[in-house]
């Protein structure tokens, strides 16, 4: 693809149509509300009551399931916070593990087999079974019980620990983070591996020929090209994590799905509750894909294509 074509592609993406203006406005409302709710729940703002909607459903004349869902919005917003937290932390921590895993897989001698076994075992078994193994099998949450007093936020700024509550409150959340990080590391390692393999091997030869060591060549020449190739796969992984973070409900983490499920199983307002929940997931997923599309355009280099990952 020529440089001119690349530029044109970027420009078309940025030329905003009416449709995408509407989408941006909706996105602003969606995230504005969530942010406001989080601030109220942490008592960072001098108005609003934690856990109580800004306006009561009765005032708006709502009844039945709609009223229940409206009344539950503060709880759902708090659940959404944990969903976002799990997603963001796991994908970043997973990436930190995935880069060495994939490099070992491609360039390693015996570490190649270690990396291969790890990714195959993780990718060959269900994520939920992995969470069960950590939570029920290894009883891992016990290990974090002390961290209610010992979380990193607690040590630095005690105020944060209270307000950014979840890390402090729920030991199971730590287990979930470990589970999702391990799982995501395996999938991300696969994306990065296939991206490394799609970089021309001559690039490393050229790097060696100007006097770089193997390690420097991988670090400064191969990986920067690789990570651009890996972006579409990475987007898929992000979407995957957003949706599959709901599995944390099985190990009692009070994320978005669990909050809704708790209300719905009491009131039997499944339709209203899960419609709202579905919309929240759709909102987060669409935001993530749009942002990643933007990132992809920003870091695009002329002449470097992309590989597709799992969707």
């Amino acid at each position, binding site marked *: 693809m020529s440089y001119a074509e690349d530029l044109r592609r970027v420009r078309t993406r940025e030329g905003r149509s009416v449709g995408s203006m509407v989408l941006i406005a909706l996105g602003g409302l969606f995230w504005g509300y969530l942010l406001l709710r989080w601030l109220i729940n942490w008592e960072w703002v001098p108005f609003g009551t934690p856990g109580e909607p800004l306006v009561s459903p009765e005032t708006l004349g709502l009844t039945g399931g709609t009223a229940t869902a409206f009344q539950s919005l503060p709880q759902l917003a708090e659940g959404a916070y944990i969903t976002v937290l799990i997603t963001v932390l796991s994908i970043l921590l997973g990436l930190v593990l995935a880069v060495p895993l994939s490099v070992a897989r491609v360039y390693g001698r015996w570490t190649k087999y270690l990396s291969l076994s790890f990714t195959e075992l993780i990718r060959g078994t269900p994520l939920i079974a992995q969470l069960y193994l950590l939570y029920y099998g290894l009883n891992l949450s016990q290990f974090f019980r002390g961290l209610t007093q010992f979380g990193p936020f607690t040590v630095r700024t005690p105020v944060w620990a209270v307000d950014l509550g979840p890390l402090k409150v729920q030991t199971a959340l730590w287990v979930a983070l470990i589970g999702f990080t391990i799982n995501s590391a395996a999938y991300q390692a696969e994306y990065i591996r296939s991206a490394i393999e799609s970089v021309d091997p001559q690039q490393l030869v050229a790097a060696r020929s100007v006097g770089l060591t193997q390690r420097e060549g991988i670090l400064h020449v191969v990986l920067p090209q690789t990570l651009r190739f890996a972006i579409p796969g990475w987007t898929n992984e992000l979407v995957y994590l957003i949706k599959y973070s*709901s599995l944390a409900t099985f190990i009692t983490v009070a994320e978005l799905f669990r909050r809704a499920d708790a209300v719905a199983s009491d009131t039997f307002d499944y339709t209203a509750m899960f419609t709202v929940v579905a919309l929240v997931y759709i909102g987060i997923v669409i935001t993530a894909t749009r942002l990643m599309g933007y990132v992809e355009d920003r870091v695009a280099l002329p002449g470097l294509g992309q590989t597709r990952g799992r969707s």
Partner: protein
Amino acid sequence: MAVELTPVAAPLQGGLVDAASRFFLDNPDWGYVWSNRDAILDATVVTVQLTFVSIVLGFLIGLPAGVAEVYAPAWLRVPVETVGVVVRAVPILVILIYMFYVFSVSSSPFIAATFALGLRSGAYQSQIFRGAIQSVGEGQMEAARSVGMSKLEAIVYVIVPQSLRRSIPGFQNEFTIVLKDTSIAIILGVTELLGTAEDLFLQQNRTGTALELILAISLVYFVLTVTTNRGLEFAGDYFGVPTGENA
């Protein structure tokens, strides 16, 4: 705020260390797993059935949807695309709940789970087929039309057979995803592998053997995914025809 270190050490012994030492040093209770092999085998059958029926349902939804996304007029294409985008953005857990409690497609958790997994797989399979169809190339359609076939005939006899072969790698991926995600049907109480393992360690008050049970069923999943992958790779070679791009 005071930093207490002691509570960290204490659960360490009761938790991870205890479980690990019992498992590695003392005697892991494989006997309990073995004595329940029939239940695990039955559960394996349920998992395989759930996977198979869901994949077939997904195929029946996904192939026409994929064709529609490429060839259908806007009044049909836009709704198909929209449903696809929504289904792919929502967790399978929510879709399962929707099928059972909101749409109430069936009072049987197994059937409701099939609908959920099938619909979701259909939404992904449509993308696999759409991509494969788009990779077939305009020339094939033109050649078929030029011998007098209708558009539908050209799709059925020329485009679809070629795209099916091209979609085998994506299909392989989709198959293992569905297989693994059958475990999420545990939310509706389907007694597939994970649900059975949970019953065995929770309801029978044998929490001590959770590790052994989960490892055992994980092994079954692993064997199933590896066999499926190899099987579909074989199918790909078997049905594959030499394809030069310019022919």
